[in-house]
């Protein structure tokens, strides 16, 4: 029953999102084929128009795409020289985006969790105030500016990391990391600040609870009280926001991808819009939407792990 409901949700979301996305593309003026094959002959253009069903209504075009997508056919990506299936490109750029998102989230949580816990525990001290100021500074730096700064100092001047391009982890794990470190840091910095503040405020509320005083009265060490007793009940908001972020980062790391020339989903989407690749765009948006929903489904499951009271509520 639960699975069925989730599946229905997934279906509705994918349809709504892709419908909206392709409607937006429809609004762009001009003949898409002129952008798709600028140097093609009139006959080639006419063929492409037929293939893309440009002479028919939007509803027909959309439902054709939907039918194809449902059977696993994501359509073609049109270039001057050749038509390659969208899936080819997707399998290249999706892992890049997923890895970047994963690293950035891990890095952000790695710093934000201890910082959030400590600043809540030491509320009002210099440590709290300093990290508060630092958090606002981190949020205030635009992504691209931070990216360029890191590129210049850590990449160009010190030469520690590579500044642009990508290598897959299968080919060369070390190079892969060298390429990924700077974009990861760039993305994570803002997240650290947000996550830390979120956890801090929930944690402060939890630390007022009776059961924390009771844990103290048992003689437990502060570390155990903070991390075993207080962290879990304080982490639901953090989990929700981090979950939403995962979805956003899969297709939304465009600026960082541009700055570091990472061939990820953001860059691909951007390209697809510019080149009027309607079918490719729809397919990619649909894949991202599906991933987004799957992630949030996983977050729902995690809730029940974190808080047993939700487990029981779900059962009944």
């Amino acid at each position, binding site marked *: 029953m639960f699975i069925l409901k989730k599946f229905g949700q997934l279906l509705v979301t994918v349809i709504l999102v892709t419908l909206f996305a392709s409607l937006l593309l429809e609004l762009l003026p001009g003949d898409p084929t002129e952008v798709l094959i600028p140097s093609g002959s009139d006959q080639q253009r006419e063929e492409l128009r037929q293939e893309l069903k440009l002479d028919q209504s939007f509803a027909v075009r959309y439902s054709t795409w939907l039918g194809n997508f449902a059977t696993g056919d994501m359509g073609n990506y049109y270039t001057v020289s050749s038509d390659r299936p969208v899936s080819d490109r997707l399998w290249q750029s999706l892992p890049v985006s997923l890895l970047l998102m994963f690293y950035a989230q891990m890095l952000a949580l790695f710093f934000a969790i201890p910082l959030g816990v400590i600043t809540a525990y030491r509320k*009002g001290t210099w440590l709290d105030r300093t990290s508060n100021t630092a958090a606002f500074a981190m949020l205030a730096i635009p992504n691209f500016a931070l990216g360029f700064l890191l590129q210049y100092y850590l990449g160009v001047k010190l030469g520690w990391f590579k500044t642009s391009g990508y290598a897959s982890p299968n080919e060369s794990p070390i190079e892969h990391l060298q390429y990924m470190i700077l974009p990861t840091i760039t993305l994570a910095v803002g997240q650290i600040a947000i996550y830390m503040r979120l956890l801090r405020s929930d944690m402060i509320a939890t630390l007022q*609870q*009776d*059961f924390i*005083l*009771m*844990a*103290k*009265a*048992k*003689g*437990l*060490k*502060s570390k*155990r009280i903070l991390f*075993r*007793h207080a962290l*879990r*009940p304080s982490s639901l908001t953090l989990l929700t926001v981090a979950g939403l972020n995962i979805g956003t980062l899969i297709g939304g790391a465009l600026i960082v991808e541009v700055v570091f020339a990472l061939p990820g989903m953001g860059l691909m989407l951007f390209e697809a819009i510019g080149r009027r690749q309607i079918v490719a765009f729809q397919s990619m948006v649909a894949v991202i939407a599906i991933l987004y929903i799957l992630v949030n489904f996983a977050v729902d499951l995690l809730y029940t792990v*974190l*808080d*047993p*009271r939700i487990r*029981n509520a779900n059962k009944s």
Partner: protein
Amino acid sequence: MSVQTPISGLPTPSGTPGAPKLLEVRDIVTRFTTDRGSLTAVNGVSLSLERGRTLGVVGESGSGKSVLSRSIMGLLPRSNTERSGQVIFEGKEISGLNDTEYRELWGDEMAMIFQDPMTALNPVMKIGLQITESLRFHLNMSKSDAKDTAVALLKAVKIPEPEKRFSSYPHEMSGGMRQRVVIAVALACGPKLLFADEPTTALDVTVQAQILDLLAEQQRERYMGMILVTHDLGVVAGRADEIAVMYAGQIVEQAPTALLFSEMKMPYTEALMSAIPKLTDASHTRLAAIGGRPPDLVNPPKGCAFSPRCPYVQPRCHEESPTLTPSPTAPEHLFACFYPIGSPETEEVRLRIAAQRLMATAPEFVAAPANTPTPAQQSPVPAPPEQTEGM
């Protein structure tokens, strides 16, 4: 968890023969810095307790009972808190300890039972773990030993199916069961001193007696000293050896239980007495039966703190504050009042109130004296406690 004998071989610092008292508290003052100024929650409390004895601390909501227990245990937050006075536990001054030193005592030598079992247990931890963690920490028990001990404790606090309950979460249990778990947690390491801070206030009346009996039984068996905090004189009546009545952060009357009930001296104690909840009252009733409101602890009234609400108040009460002094007839009976119950002044007031009441109910039988105001003019004398609302 063996029951320890009251006589330990420790030398006493003062050199007096015998073991030192389990607990001696001298002149504790606890102040909080608040937005409105310094709030004096505990104002010069002294008391002492032997092993195997129970001291009842009674007072209205806000009288400082919880802050007193936490001051003694050292559980108050360090920021915004100012504390002075001595706490001597088994002959050793503990009020200056740091948290690391306190942790050796907390849960091991002294433990606390909290008011609300609904919030005192961690909602996301199995109750078994909540019991075993202090066993593992203080007594270095192995995992399986700790589990066996925890199950035995659950059995001792009369939780049915203790093995099964070991892996339950708090929300799967009723309030009464949860309070039993809280008690099991407190008893786990065999403390010598137990603070029970309103252990039954949040519970159904039917469950209250069971929990109090369980506490009394465990206290006897383990030969603990117990400080039983409550706002209900009825709770401590049969269960405490001695009772201290608190008002506005001070002890205003203290006596062995029987003596307190037979010869109460403080008008406030009398008011508390008349406010003992009846079994017929709805459960969870907070004490609201005494007319007037507790004093503002940031700006306490001049003179006796109870004077704005005291039915027997005299001009002197507004000027000077009475100190806790032994009764001339029984030195173990202490009270802080200029005009205790039974003194000529209170008797006069009592008669006057009785006369007014009579006039109000049957004015035709009593000729109104010219100098006393008629009830219709609203008597300046506050109604006696027997008459206050909420009864």
